[in-house]
């Protein structure tokens, strides 16, 4: 005999996670179309590693393996890691990052729902700190066939220099460091219309998936709106003050991980803020830190570090932004 409520909505963690996976498909498709099928190999490597780590850790922790393994949460983490990494990254690096995310980032903290840090961003941070060169090798837009790409991912011989190049954020950063100014650096055809040839499409595909999540009520508007709004605001201020030094808001919004971060990373409910006001603060904080890292830091894109830094602040933000409860709102006192 169990207690009320006896009625329950037809929903589950699996359904939530599955929806997130579906919402990632447009961006994955665009990335494959632009950069080649190596991403599919990365997704496979990350997924298998994640599931193996999840099962092993659940076993070690003495928890039931089947329900947790089929909740798809490990796959969401794996896919988020895979899409962040350069598609031609060697297989062992992807495995290392994924295993780190699952074992240290998730299960050592107590598994699903307990991790204070976004596991995918932990993996990305680990890899970019440990292997900065590998992590900057993004394939160019010129087509390479699948066999070659898979060979690079799985093979030992890495003659990828010829076909890889910097991401637009990387290029901007290098250009600025070597004495150019933002406007002239961005005249190069690699920057496409706004934020890098092809990259704009990736960003828009993330936005499309994010809108799907919004429509299906998997996420609320607070984090994407605050994230994009804050990024636009701070980059606009910088750009208006010193257009030679800082890229335009449009560039910042469409380049790198901005839109992916706004809809898919910062919206991770476990490691993010939960109150409506807290979500606004949390997301705006990420955008601000990410822009600061992009503009002044040592890394081309700062979304991962910004997310991790704001993860630390979540307990405080949640505590200080508790919404007023029924009957205790301002002006209610008789």
């Amino acid at each position: 005999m169990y207690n009320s409520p006896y009625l329950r909505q037809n929903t589950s963690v699996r359904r939530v996670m599955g929806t997130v996976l579906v919402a990632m498909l447009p961006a994955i498709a665009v990335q494959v179309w632009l950069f080649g099928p190596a991403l599919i190999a990365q997704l496979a490597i990350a997924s298998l590693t994640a599931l193996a780590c999840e099962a092993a850790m659940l076993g070690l922790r003495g928890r039931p393996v089947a329900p947790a393994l089929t909740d798809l949460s490990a796959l969401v983490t794996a896919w988020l890691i895979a899409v962040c990494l350069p598609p031609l990254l060697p297989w062992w690096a992807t495995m290392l990052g994924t295993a780190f995310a699952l074992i240290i980032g998730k299960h050592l903290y107590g598994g699903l729902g307990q991790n204070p840090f976004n596991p995918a961003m932990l993996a990305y941070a680990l890899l970019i700190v440990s292997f900065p060169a590998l992590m900057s090798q993004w394939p160019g837009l010129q087509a390479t066939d699948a066999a070659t790409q898979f060979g690079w991912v799985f093979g030992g011989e890495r003659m990828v220099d010829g076909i890889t190049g910097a991401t637009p954020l990387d290029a901007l950063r290098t250009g600025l460091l070597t004495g150019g100014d933002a406007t002239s650096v961005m005249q190069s055809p690699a920057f496409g219309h706004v934020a890098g040839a092809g990259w704009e499409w990736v960003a828009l595909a993330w936005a499309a998936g994010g809108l799907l999540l919004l429509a299906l009520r998997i996420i609320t508007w607070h984090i994407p709106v605050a994230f994009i709004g804050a990024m636009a605001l701070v980059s606009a201020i910088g750009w208006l003050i010193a257009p030679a030094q800082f890229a335009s808001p449009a560039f910042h919004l469409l380049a790198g991980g901005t839109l992916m971060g706004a809809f898919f990373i910062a919206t991770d409910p476990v490691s993010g803020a939960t109150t409506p006001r807290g979500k606004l603060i949390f997301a705006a904080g990420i955008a601000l830190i990410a822009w600061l890292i992009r503009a002044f830091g040592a890394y081309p894109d700062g979304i991962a570090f910004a997310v991790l830094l704001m993860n630390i602040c979540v307990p405080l933000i949640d505590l200080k932004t508790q919404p007023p409860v029924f009957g205790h709102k301002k002006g209610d006192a008789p």
Partner: protein
Amino acid sequence: MLRQLFSFNGGVKPDPNKGASTREPIARLPLPPQLIIPLHQHIGGTPRPLVKAGDRVLHGQRIGAADGNVSSAVHAPTSGTVVAVEPRLMPHASGLSAMAVVIEPDGLDLRIEREPFDWHAATPGEVRDHLRDAGVVGLGGAVFPSHLKLSAGTAGSTDTLVINGAECEPFITCDDMLMRSEALDILRGAQVMRKMLAARQVLVGVEDNKPDAAAALKAAAAELSDASLDIVVVPTRYPAGGAKQLIRVLTGIEVPHGRRSTDYGVQCFNVATALAVWNALEHGEPLTRRIVTVAGNVERPRNFDVAIGTPIGFVFEHAGLKPDTDTLIMGGPMMGVPLPGVEAPVVKATNCLLASSPALFPPPEPEMPCIRCGECARACPADLQPFELYWHARSRNFGRAQEYHLFDCIECGCCAYVCPSHIPLVDYYRYAKSEIWARERDKDAADSARERFEFRNWRAEREKEEKAARLAARSAAKPAAKTADVADSAPSPADAQAAAPATTDPKKALIEAAMARARAQKEAAAAKNTDALTPDQQAQVDAAEARRKRAADLLAEKQTANAPADPSAGQNDAAR
């Protein structure tokens, strides 16, 4: 009239499932072979039983008298014989028993002669007493004695009387059917209550999934042509029928936890309560029956007019309980309680009897970890953060749970309804609340024990001090009095000798004082016994006294002769 409506945050929209039980009109359920009428069916004191086994009772006879003012009476729903007054199984998840009057109906249904009560002429106080003695309590589920809620309070403090016909919980249709058939008397009851409360207006809230009920009420209101009556159709959203949520929707006022709505000028009653008030006043009819929805896994879902005390199994038999039923629920699927057995009776709080089957209400899927998705917070009509409450309740961090307003939770079940991790959230809150109550009880007990102990210590200390003060006073007075004593009385030298050491020894002084008190008491007693004597008796007493004095004198002479300086002899003598 177009009225501005307000909304509350959160809430859910489960399938109302109200169609099946509203196809047929309300049916009057026959009487069962035995009625089990619990004495305690409301919030407040347990009524005193007025009958004993073997008594004959009549329909409408009071069988339990209200225990104090915060209580309500209980009546026999038919005539028959009381076969027992004993603890019986109650319709409560605990499976506990409570005192009940068991009546075997005689089938004659003889009514008790009604005492005429002219409520138009009666004072509000008399009307309230009448309602209390008619057993009228809130029929929306809370069963709070209605008479207590019908004071005007400080003049003009009540603005709005809300009559709750929202009935937001799925499957339950008893209020719906009652509004359709008894709209006029419901509104008449509301008019009486409005007068008693001195309220400006009456707002009857009905969810928009009950158009027939709303139409019936509107027609009745038109017939009464009372400008203060307004039938308001509100959007269907569970839990719009919660008193606080309905007050919010109709008036925009949010009544916080721990406050009464009357502090905000609003009072709220269920539609069935309004009808019960009208029946009690106009027809002198005590509350002995109520409408019960029987729904869920039954062949013939329907609303029944049921005598209170009818065993639940008997009700289900008439609706045709299906064989795959696994749980019987009292109330709706969101807030109902699982019943411990079919012997438990229908009580004043029984609005719905729901049969559950694994197909209808599948057992919850295994509980997964909370992913803090916040669905529960979006669904919570009390604007709480249910996942934080869950977190703290689960880690037995009850203080934190209270800081997150645990006691503002109305246990509506919206959070558990939407939870993708299938966490039985409400169970955690019930557990946390009961733990906190238990701790408070323990703390209260410990506090009063400590207070008693401290008071005892304080009293012992005070007595010690008083004793010391008395002694000090006495020993200060003694040396001065001594010389006078010796000089004044000195009837025997032994007395003076005995007194001398006493001044130096406090123990001796105490004994002395005690003896003096004893003497005084003895004299007082003697005086009482010898009051008002006849001259003959007085003569006898005098003679006896003389004999005794002579004997004492003789003894004294003898002692002085034998042991001239024995102080103990003198003491003994004095003590005799």
